């Protein structure tokens, strides 16, 4: 028998809010030390899953163990070992950056000397040292976002939950946060990262799930998932003749270099075609309608989602 050292294991975990099936039967096995991505559109159930695993929201049914502890029975043991970065900016506006971070450390019972040193170190890494004595209410959104992250990590937890940690950050700050998260992974922490940025999921995660309507629709490493879509390029375009979408896709997929096709949203079609860039004209000849607004790209996780649901991650 192989015993995997698991950070998280869930069994048919569900959360219903009345008629809304926010999380609808999730089975997970997340090995220790991995950076695990949870990708899904708005309302997929990412935050609800994190809240259940961090013990602040009781599940409707199912069980989960976190670091070997039961989420219903061993709440305190779990809380001692996790750090949570919530999706919203949750800070005390009338405390300064240091005081906000210190408060979390104090709740964990870190020694003053330890948390003071570490806070300075962390603020430095996030380029926030020079303004750390100002009240947080005067910070810009991006600065608050970085403090939001630091409050989750001050006590060096074994398991970290980051719920969309880079939402609303400019590309440069986003890089800073990404590098920061990678640092933790190198220290052997287990990290659960939710996002609806396919770039982020692709770049950071060792393994990921894509969830939609509270269910896992696929799971694997980013390369595995993209690999399932085939070798081809993704060709996306708009057509005027929307009623004929299905016929157009049918005609296109008859070509031997077109592996599959899907309609996305109301007006768009996505084809997966080998060597797609050079064969656009061939495709055009076959589908016999005008393609507008064409883009050709490599497979992304977004296309994995499109393939599975016929929708985009972000509409």
């Amino acid at each position: 028998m192989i015993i995997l050292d698991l950070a998280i294991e869930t069994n048919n975990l569900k959360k219903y809010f009345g008629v809304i099936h926010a999380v609808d039967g999730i089975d997970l096995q997340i090995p220790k030390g991995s950076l695990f991505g949870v990708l899904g559109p708005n309302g997929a159930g990412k935050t609800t899953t994190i809240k259940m695993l961090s013990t602040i929201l009781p599940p409707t049914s199912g069980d989960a163990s976190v670091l070997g502890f039961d989420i219903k029975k061993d709440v305190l043991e779990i809380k001692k070992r996790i750090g949570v970065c919530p999706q919203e900016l949750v800070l005390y506006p009338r405390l300064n950056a240091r005081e906000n971070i210190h408060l979390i450390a104090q709740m964990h019972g870190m020694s003053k000397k330890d948390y003071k040193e570490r806070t300075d170190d962390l603020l430095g890494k996030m380029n926030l040292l020079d303004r750390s004595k100002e009240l947080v209410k005067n910070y810009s959104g991006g600065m608050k976002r970085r403090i939001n992250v630091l409050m989750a990590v001050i006590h060096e937890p074994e398991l970290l939950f980051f719920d969309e940690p880079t939402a609303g950050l400019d590309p440069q700050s986003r890089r800073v946060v990404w590098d920061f998260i990678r640092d933790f992974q190198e220290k052997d922490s287990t990290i659960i990262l939710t996002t609806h940025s396919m770039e982020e999921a692709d770049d950071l995660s060792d393994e990921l799930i894509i969830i939609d309507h509270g269910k896992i629709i696929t799971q694997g490493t980013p390369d595995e998932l993209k690999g399932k879509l085939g070798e081809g390029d993704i060709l996306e375009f708009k057509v005027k003749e929307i009623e004929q979408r299905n016929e157009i896709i049918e005609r296109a997929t008859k070509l031997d270099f077109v592996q599959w096709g899907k309609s996305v949203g109301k007006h768009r079609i996505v084809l997966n075609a080998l060597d797609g860039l050079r064969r656009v004209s061939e495709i055009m000849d076959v589908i016999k309608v005008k393609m507008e607004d064409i883009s050709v790209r490599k497979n992304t996780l977004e296309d994995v989602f499109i393939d599975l649901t016929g929708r985009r991650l972000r509409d």
Partner: protein
Amino acid sequence: MEQIFEPKFTNQLWYLTVKNFKSMIREISQLVWIFGYPLVFILLFRFGYGLETFNIFAPGVVILAPIVLISQLAGHFAEEKESGTLQRLITTPVSRSTVLLSGLFSQLIVAAIQIIVMLLLILLFGVSINPNANIFLLFFIPFIVAFTSLGFGLILASFVRTASSAGGLAWFIILPLQFLGGLLTVPLVGFIPTSLAAEAMGAVMINGSIAFDLVGLNIIFIAIWGIGLIVLGILLFQRKTAIL
């Protein structure tokens, strides 16, 4: 390798209380409310109605001070719920009751400061206090009233979602307490905390009395009110915020 810390309840309580206190004194509007509202009545009585009337109503004005803590406390917890900080706190190994206690503690510190300031202010504005008045009781009676305010505040906090609605709705408790209790008028109802307190405070401040039936008994009744309201408040607050 990660360390696991063993947090101590007393330390958590202390740090949370300090945090609450800092958040409060850094907000000008809260300071204005805590000290300004009772001050308005001091000025009104002293300069509007004159020193003689002021002498009669000064005990009530001091009782008025801890009453404003109802909106203060309800606003504090509503803000923690609304902004998500309560939820964030309880992802750490701190219990909900420690967070709750810290909220009550910091308000009691405010109450103590507020009462001392009010007593100094009425003296400054020339109120004549009976030379035999028991100074400890002058402080203790309004301080006991602060406990009933915390109870009312908690009950209110368990029903409201935002700090601003807490501030608004608090008036529906503050005004009846103020007028029915006769803090600034004649009392209409005898058994509510404010009328009990005003009676006891008047006996101590004006007559220099320490009679049990006027002072001791009233303090006991106010304390019963306080305990009852706080227990009810805690039960309601815990239940209403159990599912976050």
